[in-house]
């Protein structure tokens, strides 16, 4: 199984631990990642908040390169995945638009490749059975709240690979790793990522609601599949605790970190030190690491 790999800007900066563990997990499961050469930023929310054509052109340049490689794209970042899927969706039956986009990027974009999120590849294409077979150190006793955020499963017309209101793929993966999952209410609520710098107050409230719900559901930790979500839930947790005068201390993992851990990788190689809420104490207490 081989994919054109699109790491996206975050995995090269704030989320290097996601990038590293993505490579680890894919290597273990035999998913070959061929990085798209000289890829550019997808434009994220800022592009489609500003100009529709720009929001399609930026991902299209990357997709066109993947077409040359003849491979479907896998993106670990939910935002990157969503922008690519959106571009494919909008240009699919619209030749005029596809032509316009091709002109703007100065290359032929034909719309022949698919874009998948890393979670979809691992949970659906590889599947929990294969994952379970690779587990060396089951995550016994760890109770996680699987958090999908908004961009992985919405809007269903664009994404469509898991239920938009109560997705289950991350739960199935976590169960395969031996962890316990909680049924909780905020797994697809938005954390407000694109406002994290400009309207931190809003992000603090949304993050607070999510952390609150996870805690109330009895989770020890949150597991996510998006660098924006992780940055907000982990990086902003201190601010939330201060603003709302509360204590959560909920570590926020990338699902690939937990997969690596269960696959028997050395905990110190998984980037836990880079978390704002250090998860090592929790992992020690559960005798997982």
């Amino acid at each position, binding site marked *: 199984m081989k994919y054109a790999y699109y790491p996206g800007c975050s995995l090269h*900066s704030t989320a290097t631990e996601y990038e590293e563990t993505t490579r680890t997990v894919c290597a273990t499961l035999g998913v070959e990642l061929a990085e798209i050469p000289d890829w550019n930023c997808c434009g994220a*929310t800022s592009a489609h908040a500003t100009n529709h054509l720009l929001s399609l052109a930026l991902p299209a340049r990357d997709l066109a390169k993947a077409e040359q490689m003849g491979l479907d794209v896998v993106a670990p970042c939910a935002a990157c995945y969503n922008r690519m899927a959106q571009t494919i969706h909008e240009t699919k039956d619209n030749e005029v638009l596809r032509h316009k986009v091709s002109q703007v990027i100065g290359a032929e974009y034909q719309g022949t490749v698919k874009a998948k999120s890393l979670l979809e590849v691992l949970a659906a294409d590889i599947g929990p059975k294969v994952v379970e077979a690779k587990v060396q150190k089951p995550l016994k006793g760890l109770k996680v709240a699987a958090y999908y955020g908004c961009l992985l499963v919405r809007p269903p017309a664009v994404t469509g690979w898991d239920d938009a209101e109560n997705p289950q793929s991350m739960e199935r993966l976590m169960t395969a790793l031996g962890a316990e999952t909680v049924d909780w209410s905020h797994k697809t609520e938005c954390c407000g990522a*694109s406002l994290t710098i400009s309207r931190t107050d809003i992000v603090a409230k949304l993050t607070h609601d999510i952390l609150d719900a996870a805690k109330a559901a009895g989770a020890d930790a949150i597991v996510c599949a998006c660098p924006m979500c992780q940055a907000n839930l982990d990086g902003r947790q201190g601010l939330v605790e201060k603003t709302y005068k509360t204590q959560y201390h909920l570590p926020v993992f990338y699902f690939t970190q937990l997969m690596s851990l269960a696959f028997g990788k050395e905990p110190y190689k998984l980037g836990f030190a880079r978390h704002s809420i250090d998860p090592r104490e929790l992992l020690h207490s559960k005798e997982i690491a």
Partner: protein
Amino acid sequence: MEMEVLNLTAVGPAGAAFAAQVGAEAGTDVFSCYQCGKCSAGCPISYAMDYQPRQIMRLVQLGLKDEALKSSTIWLCASCATCTTRCPREVEIATVMDTLRAMARREGYPYKERNIAAFHRAFLNAVAGGGRAYELGMILSYKMATFELIKDIDLGLTWLRQGKLKFFPERIHGAAAVRDIFDKVREIERKEVAAQREGRPVAHEGTEGHS
């Protein structure tokens, strides 16, 4: 505050044209909306908005362009698409928000949420410069624009220490090609705006083949 009276007949054909244009650019039928409020109810940010998302749809239906484009709502929308996902009439509300925001920017409306606009600008400038987002540079240029120098300094320093922020941007070989994308898009937009001012029809890619 004195109760403002909106004269609906005074909106005239310009209002209808505005509604039609929003629908065409967003590729959705704004008149499908029957004002049930499910979008507002599910919106995580509606509490901070001056108009509820539902009310923005109403403003568009009635052709009240200024009210819609001057609202904070269109800037606060985080594009999480909860509204689109749950809309019983299959209106793509999140895309309508995108469309209104782009329209407001294009037509020089004052930004109700200056910081959000400044952030998007800073982000895109970084991408236009080197082909990829560059958090530190972007945050610095955002701070210069907004004078929010002290805010987030803690988190920034932590992230620098943790190696989450890089001191130098990643520049890709194709940076010039990406720059070119920005230039072309701007050129197309400039032409379309000019055409619109002169009352020539503008072909919206959203109207064709968009499901």
